[in-house]
């Protein structure tokens, strides 16, 4: 249904999913032997110790693990916010390390959508204006951005809340606005950092249902960092990280549509 709503909107023609056109392989994300360490004072703290990861297009993968295991660092590398010390990172068939900083910003802006734990909506902007921010940053005209924003807010069930300020929205509604914002530029890859951590038992699964339907119906790839085991059934795979390495993969469903049925594979 969401797919129909989004695809029916003519603005999507203005914002082509560049990744679809340019991606000859089935992998949305490929990470090989990635190392990352933080240096503070004279101390070096390794965070990622040779992570390998491959995520197929349309797959929904969860990254789980204890605090300090490297989940957020890995997500930041996938989002082109951090660069690894060593290793190889390919996002939508583009070698991230070969891109200059502005190139990484463009890749992030045009093909990656972010969903944050605390929503990170901009105060002073309405729900609709918040959704339009990535479009404005991309140079889309205000009118086209608003058309696209309305479609997205309708798709996440917030047609009645377009003019509401973030402080007047519930946590669940805020996260749905954030999800709509993440989809504004029609990205191929959605990265979510603890998207349900600030939501209650009812809203958490609701947001995940939305995210899951998007990956299923729109063919988007999603990588979700989470501690919330209640939402694991929405994943195709759950990767367990410990001490900067993927130590275990839990295959919950065949890649693509969400399903149930776990199959653990030791890494």
């Amino acid at each position, binding site marked *: 249904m969401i797919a129909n709503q989004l695809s029916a909107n003519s603005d999507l023609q203005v914002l082509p999913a560049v990744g679809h056109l340019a991606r000859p392989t089935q992998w949305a994300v490929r990470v090989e032997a990635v190392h990352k360490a933080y240096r503070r004072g004279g101390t070096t703290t390794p965070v990622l110790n040779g992570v390998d990861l491959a995520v197929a297009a349309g797959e929904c993968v969860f990254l789980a693990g204890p605090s300090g295991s490297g989940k957020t660092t890995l997500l930041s590398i996938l989002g082109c916010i951090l660069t690894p010390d060593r290793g190889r990172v390919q996002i939508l068939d583009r070698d991230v390390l070969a891109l200059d900083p502005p190139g990484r910003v463009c890749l*992030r802006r045009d093909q990656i959508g972010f969903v944050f734990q605390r929503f990170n909506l901009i105060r002073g902007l309405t729900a609709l204006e918040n959704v339009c*921010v*990535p479009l*404005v*940053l991309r140079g889309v005209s205000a009118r086209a951005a608003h058309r696209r924003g309305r479609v997205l807010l309708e798709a996440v069930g917030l047609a009645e809340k377009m003019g509401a300020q973030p402080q007047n929205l519930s946590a669940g509604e805020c996260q749905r606005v954030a999800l709509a914002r993440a989809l504004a530029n029609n990205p191929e890859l959605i990265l979510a950092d603890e998207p349900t951590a600030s939501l209650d038992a009812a809203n958490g699964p609701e947001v995940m249902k939305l995210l899951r339907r998007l990956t299923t119906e729109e063919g988007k790839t999603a990588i979700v960092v989470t501690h919330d085991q209640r939402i694991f059934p929405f994943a195709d795979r759950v990767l367990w990280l410990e001490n900067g390495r993927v130590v275990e993969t839990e295959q919950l469903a065949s890649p693509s549509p969400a399903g149930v049925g776990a199959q653990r594979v030791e890494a």
Partner: protein
Amino acid sequence: MWSIAFQTLIADRGKLLTALVGVVFSIVLVNVQGGLFLGFIKKAGLLADCGEAQIWVGHKKMYNVDFPQDIPRRWVHRVRSVPGVKRAEPYLIGQTNTTLPSGGFELVVVVGADRESLLGNAWNVVQGRPEAILKPNGVIIDEYDREKLEYPEMGEIREVGGLRARVVGFSHGIKSFLVTPYVFTTYERAAAYLRKNPNVCSYYLVQLQPGAEAEEVCAAIRQRVPELDAFPRHVYSRISANYWLTRSGLGISFGAATLIGLFVGFVMVAQTLYALVLDRLTEFGTLKAIGATERQIYRILFLQATFMAVVGSLIGLVLVAAIQHFYSTPVALIFIPGWLSLGSGALVLVICLIASSLPYLRIRKVDPLIVLQS
């Protein structure tokens, strides 16, 4: 982008108000201080600016309208013979005392105009008529000097330089730089009040023939009478203003107050923008995380600073107009030319933009990673 900048700015109304107060303060201070300064300076050359003479001819060392040196009256014929000169008349300016009804004395500047042409006589005469100085002992004084001269009335007899003087008219707004009252009368009577030899005068006031160029005629006068100097009236007015500027330190004191105003505005705008940014570091981090470039981030700050400068300047200029309307008098003239208002607005805009670069330096250090480390 404008929408993001504007909406986030007005969302913090308290801070926006603080910044606007800073800008308004700067604009008001710059314009009122500058206006008072220009008003004072304008008075230094008031006789030259407002009189009907186009050229002032005087002693080789002429440097201030109110402080002339004597020149022979008979040389006026040599000036009259210069091509382009339509009329040249002697003019006398000097200081003497007038007695007050209370028994005191007040220093006055006596101005004597040629009785035929009345060139250089009082203007803006609001009581009586300018030519009334031709009446026996007739003098015209300014209505703003009434208090200082202990409220003379029309027709009242006073004593100037120990001789009779009858008040035959009042002008409006002819105030000297030194706030010494001007007393306008005829050349001969002025010479008597000032106890001057009638064969000397202070200046020759020159009117030009149609089409004559003031600068060219001045050069011709200097050539014809090398003992004298000649300036177009606006030049001599500027020379008189410079006299006070360079010898009184007036420019420094007004300039310092104006700079303080600008500095306060700068600090308030910079502090407000910085506080806004500190409050919104995570949001700027979010913008970076979702793909805002450094240039786009600066553009947001640039637009916010521009908004503050423009709105603050407009409010400030409205206030300045009100202050000028209600408080500007010939005694404390607030003269605000268009270039001062526009210049202050432009200056404040530049200051706001510089102020916006301080928080930008802070934002540059914001790592988008912060939004993933919450």
